[in-house]
Structures are given as C-alpha cells and as structure tokens.
C-alpha cells in the first residue's frame, strides 16, 4: 500500500508516495530522479549505493524507504556546498582517485562519514573504514591518498 513518506533530502524537504518497503536506492533513482547513487550488487556488499542517513552510512539498496521517514538523507548530489565541492570531492579529483566513476559516489560518502566521526584518520583506519566499498578499476591507492590528504588538512 502506498504511503506518503517525508524526509529531508540534501537539505530540502522531500515527500514520496510509495510502498514503504520500496528500497531507498530505487526511490532515489526512479521516483526522485537522483541517479548519482548507483546499483552495484543489490545485496549491500559493494557499497556503490552508499548514502548518509542522519550522517551515518546506509546501503540504500537494502534500506526500506519507510525507514528514512523524518530523517536526513544525503546523496552524492548533496555532498558539495552549492558550487563549492566538498574537500573530499576536490581531493578525489586532484589525487586522481576517479577512474570509471561508478564506485565514486559511494566511496565519497563512506569517506565523508569516516571523517565526520574521526577527522584525524590514520592510514590503517582509512583502509579498514573503506574495506567494504569495492572498486574494480583499481583506484584504491589514490582513494586512500585523497582521504589522507583531507584528514591531514583537518589535523592541521
């Protein structure tokens, strides 16, 4: 049965009329038209569909839309502050952490959440924290370096 689900999406109010067990990933992609969040495996393994819900990472391919009612959802489209890229987005470009780009949105949101929890990440913490986001192009080295560079800036 369809119901109206309201939540905050990238800082703006959003409301969708859908069955509550629809997955957040597909509601974002097909009902709302935000396609930056990617389908990679459909089982929460690869992390391409990672979004933030109240600041914590969620695998949107596994998350029922009703679960985000009243919460704050951030997708890749909402990571930048208007035209100003998030430091991680800038670092991903500068460090060459992007190849095909399909895992990139999930990588960025996962890294953003890691830095939010701990702005002074060590390399070990980055590796551990990124472990469950998959990349097939082999951009891992530069993804780590990009996150390290932002972490270093924040460490001052």
């Amino acid at each position, binding site marked *: 049965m369809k119901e109206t689900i309201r939540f905050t999406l990238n800082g703006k109010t959003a409301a969708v009329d859908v069955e509550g067990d629809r997955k957040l990933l597909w509601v974002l992609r097909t009902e709302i038209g935000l*396609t930056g969040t990617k389908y990679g495996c459909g089982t929460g*393994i*690869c992390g391409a569909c990672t979004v933030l819900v109240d600041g914590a990472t969620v695998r949107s391919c596994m998350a029922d839309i009703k679960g985000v009612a009243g919460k704050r959802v951030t997708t890749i489209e909402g990571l930048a502050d208007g035209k100003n890229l998030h430091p991680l987005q800038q670092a991903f470009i500068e460090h060459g952490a992007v190849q095909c*780009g399909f895992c990139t949105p999930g990588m960025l949101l996962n890294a953003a959440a890691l830095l939010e929890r701990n702005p002074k990440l060590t390399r070990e913490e980055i590796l551990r924290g990124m472990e469950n986001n998959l990349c097939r192009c*082999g951009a891992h*080295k530069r993804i780590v370096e990009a996150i390290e560079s932002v972490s270093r800036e924040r460490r001052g």
Partner: protein
Amino acid sequence: MKENPYTARYSRRDFAKFIGGGLVFCFSSRGLAQAPKGKMPGFGPPAGASDWNAYLRIGADGRVTVFSGKIEMGQANTTALAQMAAEELAVPVDSIDMVMGDTDLCPWDMGTFGSMSVSVYGAALRSAAAEAREILLELGSERLSVPVSELKAENGAVVAGSGKRVAYADLARGEKITRKPARKPAVTTPAEFKVIGQSVERLDGRAKVTGAAKYAGDLRFPGLLYAALVRPPAHGATLRTVDTSEAEKVPGVRVVREEGLVALLAEDPETARLARSKVKAEYEIPDTKVDQKSIFEHLLAKAPQPQSQEKRGDLAEGEKAAVRIFEHAYYNGYGAHAPMEPHTAVARMEGDKLTLWLSTQAPFMAQTQIASQLKPAPGKVRIITPQVGGGFGGKSITSNEALEAARLAVVTGKPVMVAFDRREEFFYDAFRPAAIVKIRSGIDSAGKICLWDYQVYYAGNRSAEQFYDVPHNLMRVYGSWMAAPGVHPFNTGTWRAPGANINVFARESQIDIMAAHLEEDPLEFRLRNTSDARMRRVLEEAARRFGYSPAPAPSRRGIGMACGIDAGSYVAEIAEISVDGGRITVRRITAAQDMGVCVNPKGSVMQMEGCITMGLGYALTEEIEFQGGKILTTNFHQYRIPRFSMLPAIDAFVVKNDALAPQGGGEPAIVPVGGAIANALFDSTGLRVFEMPLTVERVTGAGQTKAH
C-alpha cells in the same frame, strides 16, 4: 571545460549544423582499421563520409569538437585524446569538447580494446589536427595577407611576426567547405610538445565526483519501462514450461512473451523484479559434469589443432645442446570482468529508427549486430555510449541485454531499459577462458636458454612472444579466447590483456625455475638471457627504484619479478610479499613501463596502478565456480575482487622513451602481476604454484609438488 562530455545532447540535426556552420576537417584513415566493406546503407559514419575516419570541428565560438568512436570507461582516453588534438591545433585543452562513441556523430571504430585509443586513433587524430592547423594557417594567410611561412598557430589564433593575429573562431565563421592543405604538415615533435606530456586533469572528474556523470542506467525518458527478464538456471538450459499468471497479478506489470524471451515490465525496476520472482519456469538442463576441477582435462581433450608460430631454429638441436630440460604446465581457471556497472541498455524507437544507449566498448559492432538481428529490421540504428562504469574487455562483445531492450521497445512502443542485476552480470559475462600453458625449456652448459618449446591452449598468443635470446624456439597456439561451441560450458571473451596474463605468468615462472636451478639471481639470469634493449632498461629501472639486491631464489625475502611486452609497451615489475599460513600478502610492487611517448603521465601511472591492483585479483583470489553450465558464483561475496586490505605500496613509473610514438597504456602493467607474485612466493617459501589464483589451498598444497 565541459564537465560531462556526454554525447546525447547532439542530434543528427546538430551534426548537419556543424557541417554547415563551422569549419570541419576530415581526414582519411591511413593505417586504421576500416569499416567493413559492403555495409548496409544508413549504418555507420555520417552520410557521405564512409571513407573518412575522424572529425574535428572548430565552432564559430572557437571551441573545438573532436569526434571519436572510442568510448570512455575510466581509462581517461577522453583526456589524452583532447591533449593530442590541443597540441597539434595549438589551442588550450579546455577549449576542446570530446564526443565519443556515438554512431551517428563519430567515425567508425572497431571498439575500445587492445590499448589502442592513444596509439592508433590518437595517432590519426594528431595527423588530422596538424592538417587542420595547416588549413587555418592558409586561411589566416589569406585574411592577413601574410605568407604562411611567416605565420604561426598559437593559443587558438593565427599570429604574424608583426603581432597581427586572427582567431580560429573568426576564420571558421562562415566557412562551409572543407579543403586540403597545399602541403602535408608534420606533427609536432617531442621537443616542441606543450600539452602532450603534461598531467592534465581528467575532463570528467568533476562530473564523476558530483554524481552528474550519466551512465546508461541513469537515463530517464517519459514512459520509460524497466524490464526484468526470466533467466535460465544454467547455460544451455531449454525453457520447457512457463507460468506467468502470478506475475501478471502484480499491479502495473506488463508481461511480454516472445520467442526466447519472457519479460516483466514496470515503471520501476523493483516491481519488474518482484513480478519476475513470481514466474514459474521449468527448464531442461543438459547433464554436463565438467566443473572447475575437471575443466583442464576436458579442455586438453577438446583442444583444436595448433597454429605454429614464432619458429626459430630446431627444437631437436636445442634439446641436444641442453644440459638440463625443464617441463611444466601452468593453469588458470575462468575469471569474471565484474565491472561495478552491470551491462545496461536503454532502447527507444522513433518511427523505424532505434536509438540504443548502451554500456558498451564497441558501439559500432553493436550497431551492426542489432541492425541485423532486430525484427522487423529497423530503418536506422544509432548507438550512443554514455559514461561506461568499467569494461575490462567484458563490454567488447555485444551482450543480450542490447537486443532484449531493442525488442521490448519495438513490442511496447515505449522506451525500455534492460539492466543486469549482479547475478545476471556474473551469469552472462563472457569469462576469461580457463587456459593452459605447457613449456619445455632447456639451458646449455653456459647457462643460456637454448630451448623453448611453448604450447598455449585457449589463451592465444598475446604477450607470449619470446624476447629472451633463444636459438631454438617454437610456439604452438591451440585456440584463442573464443573457442568452438561446446568447448567451454558458457561464454568466454576478452579479459584485460586477453591471454597475456597466463602467458606471462607461465613464461616468467619458467624463467625463474631455470634461474633457481642455476642458483643464479633471477634478475641477472634475465639480463644475461635477453639482448632486448627496451626490456633490459625497464628491468634495470625497476630494480634500481625497488632497491633490489641480487640473491638466488629462494632467498626467503619474498621478492619476485616478472616482465612482459603488451600493446607495444614494455613492463617490468618487482613484488615483495609475505606468506602466513599459505595466505599471500603483497607488501609492495614496483613497476617500470616504457610506453613510448607518454601523453599524460599522471593518467598513465593511474592506469598502471589500476592494472597492478586489478592484477592482484587474478593472481590471488578471483575464480569462477561452476558445475556444467551452472554458474555458482553469483555476487561479490563469492568473487573476491581486490579490496583496500589487499593494497600494497605501489610505485609505478614511466620510463621515458620519446623516440617512440605512444604505445598502449590501459593493459600492459597487468600482465606481469601474477608472475611476479608467483616468483615472490617461491623466493619466500621455496614452493612453486602452477595454477592461479594462488589461493591458500594451492599454496599450502604446493608442498607436495616438487618445485624445480
């Protein structure tokens, strides 16, 4: 700079407008693969241009558009090609727009594989751009009344010594004809390079970090239907009965049943997949017993006749000269491409014209195939390639989602998307074939390689060429990555540097076995046995950068090396590993690559690092499990692609060689990874594993096999 060089914004009419309103440069295809002769009218390059191979256009606003049949799948060829055009035209890179992989707008191209974007298409593009520059100089000469010899092209303008100048934009305006220059201009020499050789940032970076980049699955059209297709449980299975009555009860679902196709369509993919789950289908599954254990025996029994290649000397002479003969067989099972973006197609019919947005490496091949397979035959087929989320050879062959989407668009009259889920992606992948290499080699009393008897099954000969100085050498090739029907239990195809990975693993293992027998350092043995200057150089550069000190293996240090030639580039890699309970951890890898002129150093090193990281997978963890035509590997929890925890310290670098035109960059650095790690394993443990991936089971089981 345009953020998203996404081709859908151009229509056929736009192209006519380009021809009418700007200066268009056409150049012929000398040395390039031509579109097949006798093509159907209406397919292929734009009208009247079937013998032209690439296009440049300078707009009235001075922006330059480059049309290329190549596609972008992460390798940053878009950026490298823009640099090459910018160099020859003397314009800033950010004044260039790239249009890639659109069969209506771009010149015919065989496909994006073989590391040929820069080395083959790029070479032709440079010639074209140089010709365009020459024409601009001629036009500038007429406009400024200054002889061509006293003019130069600079920053998007023709400039005279006196300081008089005219912008390309002003020259292009109103010109409607194409012309040929009076003299054939030379391309820029390495000493003059301003843009080539610079680490220009990739053009699609911003679009990709903001979620703006569009992949096939991101396209939305009014009335778009998402299709889920009923899939067989095994390759070779035949559908006996199908009952869709429960699926039809799902609100909003449309069922299409046609020959060989049962599809559930809905306005969102979840509803379509829910409906699919309610279909009851019965299949007859052929009783095929072969699995990943018995496959090699099966394949050897079915081996086709060999093709003899690279024959030098006489094997019998080599045997006579040998004081010791080494005979080993090397194996590698099936591997998946597993791009993060599964295969996706969106089809739309307008009248009798089909447009297909496709996640493909070969839009023109897809165009020809779809045009011939679709019933009724369409008047025209246009393939548009948006951003491709990884290919690695897995999107080189047109897969079934393309025709399925097209057929469903015809039946429903609506735009239709067919996007594989991950299980379908693992099922329909054209796997890297299981393959075998058998080598019989010998060393003479001076410790030189005197015999090389090389047999490769189902991998082809890529990177198998013998650059060691062997007087008696024979290579026999038993089939390539595409085999006759019934040989492999499912589809096989091209996996990044097809066949090269097992060829290099086998050769470089065998080389190390001989060095170890002589108790000679593996680097010294290699250098003593090859006079190939480019190979010696990358070996020496890699060793220097690694801080390599010679020692015979097994030195217990866990250091191993391998080298190879692929797509014209030479690569040497040295790996350092540790082994714990049979589990290999790669600590660091140093890689030196000679790729001729390097167009974009940062982009090239990124490709090398990507190759090395991806190579860890085929070397250590990746293996498809199957029983007959049933694919047991369904998702990433079973198919272990490299993760952050596997990441070694990678030091990849390009060895400068400007004397040689640009060679391949997307694949070469993956080919030595398996061999370097296998040799490091021997160096660490004294154990030799002959089958990749080097899993814990194989490493711990290797004690029972005599190493050398």
